[in-house]
């Protein structure tokens, strides 16, 4: 690994560039007839906006709505329970990524399972699960796979590799979700909840890492069918500011388009080889429940029938409950993930619910909206 990553961030946090972009956005927004509500779909963007204080640089006419874009935030309790139950089986090692181990299900978090003696490990890359499986031939290693389009190819690669090597003790619990379906849901659904919703989404900032794999093309329907422009942006402050500028320009010039800010590595088509790899092991699920958002059709993946014997959900079907579990009554994560409420509107924000004792997943994931508000505060607005 090459650690001269300096150029990877230096230019994109250049104070002069950020200030200049802020100035341009101010000038350009004077031509706006009404305020623009921009939803950043991904929690990574929420994090950038809060961490670098970008809201403070923007005119009042630009508003951010925080979206549902974090695979940790949107994981419903029943699936976390699956992880918890699997982890507590004898001779099972449960492997997952980062923040996931902190999210509470109805029985506890994986961190708790670990403190109770379960073998839970987090890895940086799904391929590390393969190593763990080979080092522990006497155990069943279950990879609890999470993430958007970004991490899916790595899980696919893991599955293929394990097959090639004849590794038999590695199973998968698949929770990969897809972005466009949930965006469509947010625009389309018109329950009584949404009508009371005064933050209409005017435009989207799409996460670049998703489109590096899936291409920018996955967002075509939003400008075309719904008249909502989308700009696919990177995660550095300069990227987000430039993305906002591009959106504002579309509005002042009367355009509704799909544009790519993050030309450094995003194309319309995306990474076709990775997409093929995904199709070789996964297919769409009929329904997947998103925490706070309910069941969304075709918004997640599952293993193809050919891999049923590796599917932990099937292999352990007898011990994995299927009933839905309600979220904490006071928690308004659902409204926050829909862009209907801000974290500070939650009654227990910062009191009964903090990052060290989270009630809801928006506070658990370090990129969840509640955690970002709690951590960085917001001094000027």
């Amino acid at each position, binding site marked *: *690994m090459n*650690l001269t990553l300096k150029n990877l961030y230096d230019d994109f946090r250049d104070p002069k560039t950020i*200030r200049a972009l802020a100035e341009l956005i101010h000038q350009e927004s004077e031509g706006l007839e009404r305020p623009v509500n921009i939803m950043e779909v991904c929690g990574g963007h929420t994090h950038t906006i809060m961490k*670098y204080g970008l809201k403070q640089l923007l005119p009042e006419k630009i508003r951010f709505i925080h979206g549902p874009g974090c695979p940790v935030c949107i994981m419903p309790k029943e699936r976390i329970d699956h992880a918890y139950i699997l982890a507590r089986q004898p001779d099972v090692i449960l492997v997952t990524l980062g923040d996931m181990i*902190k999210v509470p299900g109805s029985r506890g978090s994986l961190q708790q399972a670990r403190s109770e003696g379960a073998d839970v490990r*987090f890895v*940086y890359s799904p391929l590390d699960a393969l190593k763990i499986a080979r080092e522990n031939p006497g155990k069943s290693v279950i990879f609890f796979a999470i993430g958007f389009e970004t*991490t899916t190819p790595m899980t696919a690669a893991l599955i293929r590799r394990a097959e090639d090597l004849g590794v038999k003790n590695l199973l998968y619990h698949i929770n990969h979700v897809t972005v466009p379906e949930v965006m469509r849901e947010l625009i389309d659904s018109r329950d009584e909840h949404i009508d009371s919703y005064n933050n209409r989404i005017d435009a989207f900032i799409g996460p670049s890492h998703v489109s590096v794999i899936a291409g920018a093309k996955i967002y075509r329907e939003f400008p075309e069918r719904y008249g909502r422009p989308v700009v696919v942006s990177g995660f550095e402050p300069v990227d987000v500011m430039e993305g906002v500028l591009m959106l504002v320009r579309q509005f002042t010039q009367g355009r509704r388009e799909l544009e790519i800010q993050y030309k450094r590595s995003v194309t319309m088509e995306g990474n076709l080889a990775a997409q093929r790899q995904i199709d070789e092991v996964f297919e769409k699920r009929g329904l997947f429940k998103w925490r706070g958002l309910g069941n969304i059709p075709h918004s997640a993946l599952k293993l193809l029938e050919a891999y049923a014997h590796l599917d932990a959900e099937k292999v352990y079907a007898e011990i994995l409950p299927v009933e839905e579990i309600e979220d904490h009554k006071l928690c308004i994560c659902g409204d926050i993930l829909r862009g209907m409420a801000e974290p500070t509107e939650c009654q227990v924000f910062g009191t009964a619910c903090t990052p060290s004792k989270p009630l809801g997943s928006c506070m658990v994931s370090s990129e969840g909206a509640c955690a970002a508000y709690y*951590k960085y*505060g917001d001094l000027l607005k």
Partner: protein
Amino acid sequence: MKKCITLAQGNGGAENHALIKELFWRHLGNDILDRGEDAAVLKALERPAFTTDSFTVSPLFFPGGDIGKLSVCGTCNDLAMMGAQPRYLSLSVVIEEGFEVRSLEKIVRSLKKELALNDALVVSGDTKVVPRGSVDGLFITTSGIGELQGEGIGIKAIRPGDAIIVSRDIGRHGAAIFAAREGMELESALESDCASLWPQVAALLEAGIQPHALRDATRGGLAAVLNEWAEANALCIEIDEEEIPISDEVRGICELLGFEPAFLANEGTFVLALDPADVPLALEILEAFPGGEAAMRIGEVKGEYPGKVVLNSPWGTRRFLDWPTGELLPRIC
């Protein structure tokens, strides 16, 4: 002696005695320890300071140090941060059965070297051997007594207008441990900052500088120290992000894993609150020590948001720098 530590060597009998004599006393011996009494009899110190700390680290040997060096630095630094010169240490070692004697000897040598830098002695010790699996290799506990040299150093002495300095670049220990633990192949030579701080503190005091507070930024990093200070005094500490010294290597690791350098542990980096008039001389003194070229004035103590740490970005925005929470976990994607 056998190549690996056996349970018998912790039994209190002949094997145990041999281990202590041949390994610990041989390297760490001094007039007080050599007496082999149940308790060390010390000369009374005029204004003693006392502290204790336990050390567990994985891996035991990491770039820039090992658990032995760490266990001396940690305790001596706690004393130094009160303006106390480290004098006497106790050393308690819990060893996992099967631990290699060669590694143990390496650790003891490194203890010895670090003690010399502090001009301190181990005057009392204990060794236990526990069955395989009860500890991860080896745990060390050290306690230390030092003699106060500075006047009025402590959290409560911090006041509005104080300048905040860090003694060198931050985050090295945490980043080096992460890199070593995860087996990242680093092209760069990132090393822990693990070091004894008494020499720096002594130099500051000798030059007539009277810091209001000193704190080594260990677990929880710079963020934890600043938040602790702000909270304890209901004052606001305001920091300029641009001024915080961070090496390219540490920044690189943080980029990769999604960490904030200010949350990463240090083992030889400290934070000072002092009169702004003392800043130039303090920086000049710190710069003479290894790593000290990066010493910086990073901010000051104000009153605007009591109990909070505010971070000013180079592009004119502001936010809180919060306490680090929980286990540091890498981001998902």
